[in-house]
């Protein structure tokens, strides 16, 4: 994927985006035009960069965990936390309940730590970041240079196990916002990290969360102080570069009373024939009247057309609306990975809190996705909305799995769920598993679902107007996803549409 910054650069170059007359219909349709500019023909981020990389020996054991903790110069409490998670992990079995076919993962046959070797002392400014690292991000379309301020997006760039740069830190600090790598946060803000680490996704939450807690390397940390609207979008860009390496990052975002933040996450990986594991944990905490908007465009390497290689994306993402009237919105566009196992969820604890989940999941070729959300209503008058759009093409399998749980305390809880599936071709599958559990009679829970095949009539209508079949398919699919794309920040929306087209390449005809 491209970075927020270059995307914005493209936008500013395109005259269409000059808002001449905001009321004109063109303002509403302009993003599609930019799609043309960012179209690629195939997975274009599959290159790998020869960085001088330090890796931990292959395998998973307490020594490796001590190695990671030592490399990160962590305090003892954190090492103990890791070891405790690891000992629990040893008692767990891999989950088998999703509708996924997974080749056995050999947890002893991968590296749990890989980091580009620093050339000399740690860089004190962006100018000192290894030029090869900078070149790699330039190639990905992500500029780490702060002078390119077109986007106004602060980026934390993570390669394999470590954060290599975080931009705009001083500007953010002026607003009181802390945005840094997880490792820096452990060093500089241990009290906040210790208070919230594992408070939403505990180290014993599930198999992959336990694994992550044991070996997590880096990730991003954000703290938005009370009453502050974060002055710019925050973004983390994850890159898997090294071979035979898993990526286990951990992200923690805490929004204090009355604050708000919009956070973007992007990911790509080098093309490799072996499957690589990505088992991340994301925790969000929103206090009274705080608002966290978390957007993901996931474009991990999906493997080749025959299903060889690709990332196993087994991620636990959860937010807690701890305060009253707090709000957490997840928006995800899932196009990559060989296998996706992911259920960004919201615990609606504070009264009148709001949880939202907007998702587009596209699978093509041999990809498999089992994704959805959990909305746990605890507080009074809590509201959740689920909007899921699944698109299956090729021989892929696409599953929506969602849980809406209304506890006895959740007086006046409301949920609306809509799940739509679109099939392209006849060899793919779409599946929907909604679980609803209501323990309070005052709750209103609605579920709507639809499955459709891409219409011959729609395709013919477009082709009769001179639009090619491929173009027409992309257009119809993007239309199908419109409600979700509308939730994304503009630059992400443009990129998401372009990605859809790339993902569905060759799925018609």
């Amino acid at each position, binding site marked *: 994927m491209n970075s927020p910054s270059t995307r914005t650069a493209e936008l500013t170059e395109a*005259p*269409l985006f000059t808002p*001449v007359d905001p009321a*004109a*219909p*063109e303002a*509403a*349709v*302009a993003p*599609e*035009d930019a799609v043309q500019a960012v179209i690629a023909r195939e997975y274009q981020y599959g290159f790998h960069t020869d960085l001088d990389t330090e890796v931990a020996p292959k395998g998973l054991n307490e020594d490796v965990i001590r190695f990671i903790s030592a490399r990160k110069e962590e305090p003892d409490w954190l090492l103990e936390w890791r070891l405790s998670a690891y000992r629990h992990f040893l008692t767990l079995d891999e989950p088998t309940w999703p509708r996924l076919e997974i080749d056995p993962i050999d947890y002893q046959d991968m590296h749990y730590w890989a980091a580009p070797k620093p050339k000399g002392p740690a860089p004190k400014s962006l100018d000192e970041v290894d030029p090869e690292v900078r070149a790699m991000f330039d190639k990905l379309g992500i500029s780490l240079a702060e002078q390119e301020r077109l986007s106004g997006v602060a980026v934390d760039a993570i390669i394999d196990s470590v954060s290599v740069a975080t931009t705009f830190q001083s500007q953010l600090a002026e607003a009181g916002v802390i945005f840094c790598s997880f490792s820096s946060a452990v060093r500089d803000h241990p009290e906040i990290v210790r208070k919230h680490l594992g408070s939403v996704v505990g180290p014993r939450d599930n198999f992959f969360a336990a694994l992550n807690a044991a070996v997590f390397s880096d990730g991003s940390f954000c703290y938005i102080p009370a009453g502050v609207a974060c002055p710019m979008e925050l973004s983390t860009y994850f890159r898997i570069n090294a071979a035979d390496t898993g990526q286990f990052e951990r992200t923690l975002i805490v929004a204090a009373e009355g604050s708000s933040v919009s956070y973007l996450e992007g990911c790509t990986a080098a093309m490799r024939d072996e499957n690589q594991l990505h088992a991340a944990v994301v925790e969000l905490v929103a206090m009274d009247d705080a608002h966290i908007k978390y957007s993901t465009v996931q474009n991990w390497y999906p493997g080749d057309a025959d299903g060889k290689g690709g990332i196993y994306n087994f991620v636990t993402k959860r937010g807690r609306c701890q305060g009253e009237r707090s709000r957490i919105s997840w928006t995800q566009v899932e196009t990559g990975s060989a296998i996706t196992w992911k259920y960004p969820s919201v615990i609606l604890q504070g009264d009148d809190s709001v949880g939202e989940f907007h998702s587009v999941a596209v699978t093509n070729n041999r990809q498999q996705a089992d994704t959805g959300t959990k909305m746990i209503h605890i507080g009074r008058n809590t509201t959740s909305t689920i909007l899921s759009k699944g698109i299956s093409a090729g021989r892929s399998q696409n599953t929506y799995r969602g849980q809406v749980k209304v506890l006895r305390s959740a007086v006046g809880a409301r949920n609306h769920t809509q799940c739509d599936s679109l099939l392209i071709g006849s060899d793919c599958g779409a599946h929907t598993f909604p679980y609803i559990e209501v323990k309070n009679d005052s709750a209103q829970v609605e579920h709507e679902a639809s499955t459709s095949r891409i*219409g011959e*009539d*729609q395709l*013919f*209508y*477009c*082709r*009769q*107007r*001179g*639009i*090619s*079949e491929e*173009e027409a398919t992309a*257009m*119809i699919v*993007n*239309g*199908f*996803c*419109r*409600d979700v794309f509308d939730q994304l920040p503009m630059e992400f929306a443009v990129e998401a549409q372009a990605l859809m087209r790339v993902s569905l390449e060759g799925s018609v005809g």
Partner: protein
Amino acid sequence: MLHIDSLTASIDGNQILKGLDLHIGPGEVHAVMGPNGAGKSTLSAVLTGRDDYEITGTVTYKGEDLLSLSPEDRAAAGVFLAFQYPTEIPGVGNMYFLRTAVNAIREARSEPTMDAREFLTAAREQLAALEMDQALLSRAVNTGFSGGEKKRNEILQMALLEPSFAILDETDSGLDIDALRVVAAGIERLRSPERSMLIITHYPRLLEHVRPDHVHVLQDGRITRTGGPELAHELEQDGYGTLEGAISS
């Protein structure tokens, strides 16, 4: 311009068109009338390239074998169909759809494409002529449009795509008298010496507003009678039944 000779079309083993001949010259407006099931919509589907049919015979368009072209190439060559039942495409803006179509065809013809502003100016002009609400441009293609709005949207597309051969398939069906007048005026305005039209209709009432040069009767997959505009009146009075003793629908 268009030469159709001995055209047959079958679907699932049923022959719908059974040796149809029709010749349309530049700038001519032809009407094909006929009872339900005569093959009228099959004719428009075959001419625009729907691939559900087995076809024999020839169709030559501007000297080219039309049947060998893909639907989008036919569109680029200037063939346009105003659909009887325009398709809804949820989430795709009408304006974006129209401009994509116009530019796809312009590109295929190596003509310069239109930017958003140029296009908007052109579209607004046509909208006004068709007494259409500007808001229809920002809504999704045909989604939630009334029957009349869908038909006007077809004529809007025809005006913007500037085809050299337009097929109007039952464009008058489902229109109230005011909408019919506006749509007919829109069609009449697009009449030109460079543009031929084939109006397919069940009822003669559209032909009171758009006067055809030639009228053909299509029955049981063949043209059974050809005449001038007066033939439409005759049909209105006597129905299709008088023509071959067949039962009028």
